[in-house]
């Protein structure tokens, strides 16, 4: 039991990194980042857990009853809220990248340029993308 939370957290982080590295779709990539974040939830709650303890709510227990660590639970609560915000921000950036670049594939993302500076260059790049997609 003492090793299992750390093993599960390491596995979730590793499989999330694998998904980020091999993803061909930005929306799928954001979901893989969520898996990496869930590894931190499991790690923090596994650190604070004690066998045979109650939840840190002393409404119907006398004070002094062994309870799990409430500090870790506060940290995980903050982590969940920050994770939801990060997911929303990255999805908005994904939509903007799709509107600018025309693709959700990270491999096809071109560097951004100032609008109107090198329109001919962008046109040639787009033709090059089409050739690479056709071949």
């Amino acid at each position: 039991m003492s090793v299992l939370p750390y093993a599960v957290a390491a596995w979730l982080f590793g499989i999330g990194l694998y998904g980020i590295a091999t993803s061909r779709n930005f929306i799928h990539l954001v979901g893989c980042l969520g898996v990496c974040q869930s590894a931190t939830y499991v790690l923090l709650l596994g650190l604070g857990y004690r066998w045979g303890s109650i939840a840190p709510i002393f409404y119907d227990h006398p004070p002094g009853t062994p309870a799990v660590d409430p500090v870790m639970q506060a940290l995980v609560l903050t982590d969940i809220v920050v994770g939801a915000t990060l997911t929303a921000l990255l999805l908005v950036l994904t939509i903007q990248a799709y509107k600018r670049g025309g693709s959700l594939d990270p491999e096809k993302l071109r560097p951004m340029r100032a609008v109107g500076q090198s329109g001919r260059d962008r046109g040639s790049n787009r033709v090059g993308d089409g050739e690479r997609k056709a071949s």
Partner: protein
Amino acid sequence: MTAILPLLFLFAAISGTAVVLVRDPARQVFAIAVNGLVLAILFDALQAPDVALSELAVGTAAVPLLFLVALMAVKTQPPEEDS
């Protein structure tokens, strides 16, 4: 009672793996919702009911809805040509 906690840890690992291995984003939304539900049950078994409630609201409802909104925006908005 002592066997349910390792089982829930294993379920969390399996559902996280499923989120990564489902490559289609429209199907990945369901995997994300199931992963949030499994994590909520795991947190409740780890004596953290407030975290479980928050994960149930955020991970099972809010985040999949955000993914659905993003998928809908990508499908309905064509990429703008030379702006």
